[in-house]
């Protein structure tokens, strides 16, 4: 379930994408000190790969590190994707990242970061 689903029809795709990219950056900020940058990136890439079947627009995150994603890339890569689809796909990506993080470190670091990310998403004013 998307954390912004109630409002997804009223917000633009760019806003949604940027919100989730911020969430990914937050994960990056929190995980990198513990597991390193390479691991964090592979976590996101791996999650995108596993979900690319269901959400094909996530394919661009397999080839491109999320740190390099800018608005113009979003415009180009996500054209034709509705806000609702986008929100659902990016939400699934976040959940997959946390599931991956739990596979690596159990409940050591994933739960507090998960909470923090959800809080951040919910605090955004759409």
């Amino acid at each position, binding site marked *: 379930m998307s954390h912004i689903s109630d409002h997804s029809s009223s917000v633009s795709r760019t806003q949604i994408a940027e919100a989730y990219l911020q969430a990914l950056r937050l994960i990056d900020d929190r995980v990198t000190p*513990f597991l390193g940058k390479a691991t964090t990136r592979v976590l996101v890439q791996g999650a995108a790969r596993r979900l690319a079947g269901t959400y094909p627009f996530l394919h661009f995150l397999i080839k491109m590190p999320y740190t390099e994603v800018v608005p113009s890339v979003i415009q180009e890569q996500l054209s034709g994707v509705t806000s609702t689809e986008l929100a659902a796909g990016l939400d699934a990506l976040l959940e997959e990242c946390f599931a991956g993080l739990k596979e690596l470190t159990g409940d050591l670091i994933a739960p507090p970061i998960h909470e923090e990310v959800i809080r951040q998403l919910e605090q955004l004013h759409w």
Partner: protein
Amino acid sequence: MESIIPSEFQQVDGAYHSSNVQNVDRLAAIRQEMEYLNAIGKRFVAAIDRFQVHRALLAALQDLYHFTACSILLKGEPFELSIIPCYPLSEAFLEAMMQSIASAASVIDFPQLAVEELARTAYLDAPDELSTVPQTDKEGGGKIGSFLNIPLTVESRIIGMLSLFDERSEAFDTEHLKLTTMIADYAAVALENVRLRERETALWRQAEAERQRLALIIGSMAEGLLITDLRGMITLLNHSARHLMAQAQVELKQDVPLRILAQTSKVEWLSLLVEIVERALKGETVTNQELIAGERGEMVPLTLSISAAPLYDASQPGSRPTGMVAVLNDITSSKQIEKLKDEFVSIVSHELRTPLTAIKGYTQHLMRRIERRLRKLRAEQIERSTSGLATEPPENTDLRNLSIVESQAEHLERLVNDLLDLSRVQWGKLDLHYTTFFLADVLIECIHSAQVGADNHTIELDIQTKDTKIVADALRIGQVVGNVLDNAIKYSPHGGEVIVRLSEHEGHYLVSIIDQGIGISPEYLDHIFERFYRVRNKASRQFAGIGLGLYVTKAIVERHGGSIWVANNAEAGSTFSFTLPKTPHV
């Protein structure tokens, strides 16, 4: 679980400036941490194989935690899984470990790993001295209480995964997670170094095996092998080459350039060897150069055939040679056989000539007698006024048969003459009788003679010079022109034009004989003047000959100081050309 490592400075970050005491504590903590990292770093650096890395890793981790087992999964084809238990593990625990490893590996982009495959390939590495906790009667339970999977990264590249497992829950803590990742990084670099070292060792072994194999081949070669560097210094001389040199009573030294050795040696042929070597060092490939290495007075002296080629640095294409390689073959025995064969041919040719002269002489004598008798018969018939001969007299048949005998005897004589010439060339006894004559006259005579038996051909003479006076052996030059003209006619089975062109170039006459025949395949062009060489293709199979004419022709031209060559014409046929100096070279 107690740890010797103090909490990290993140926790004291805000208090850094608050008090001196805190600063001192913090500095002490950093110092302790650095000492610890230095100590484990040294262990990893000292590790020369993966088992030593495992020990270093286990020792470092056991300073942080108490745990049941750890494992290292390395990427690759095939992947490698090492399990390092701290005490005996139950099957159920091992299976749970495999499942956890497979799930975690899938998260960090490992290829899909099946639990059964992991279990099959897992290597249990439990050195006794690392089982520091004396729990001999304990066996790990069946359930994993807590785990930690840390990717092993080298330069942002994930090469594997370190996993820690314990039966208890919450065996691992966030406080030591960063340090565990650092240890994993050390282990990753150490394992990568081990992998590179193993690869280097494998490559070295492979190269060494290749070197030994090559040395074995070179050592057992029947041919002599000589390799020099750019300065002509011998770097390799195989057993056969040493043996050949010993036979020739020469000792080649590896630290002396061949040129110096030749200058100080009394052995004449060494300078010829140096010449071949230097040609190869300049980039030329020299093939089958014969070199007499034995005493000249011997019946068949030791003779070597030498082929040499430049050696280039494979990593720098187009560069200058870095040395050369020469192959030495002892061809004395084949020279001996050749000599025996030449002697045989010479004797047989001489022995054949005498009866052949007799056959030819008596045949001509018989033919003249029959001709006389036929003339007499015709005269008698005319006297008797008989109108024409009712029946052909048997003398006519006899005359035809005898002319066949004469023609075949002449053919045989030409063959014997070729064989005799071969012997003369072989023995260096092709003597020339120089006279002054006009080359054009010889050409005209040869053309007339060739035209008699060549009704389908038109032989044209094209003289492009006013003066055709020459000092040479007229008979031999006639033989040369005759041989080449015969070939031109023979290999133009459908007739056509044959042009004999004479021109003058810088003190030489150039004679070109151009035909419109079948031509010569390019692969045969280099061999056409070799003795007994016959072009073997479908088109030329029908033409008789023993392959001596052009060999003798070349010898005659060269004996005069000229040269001969052949080339195919652009449209059809070929052109044989030879030069002759106007006056003989002194």
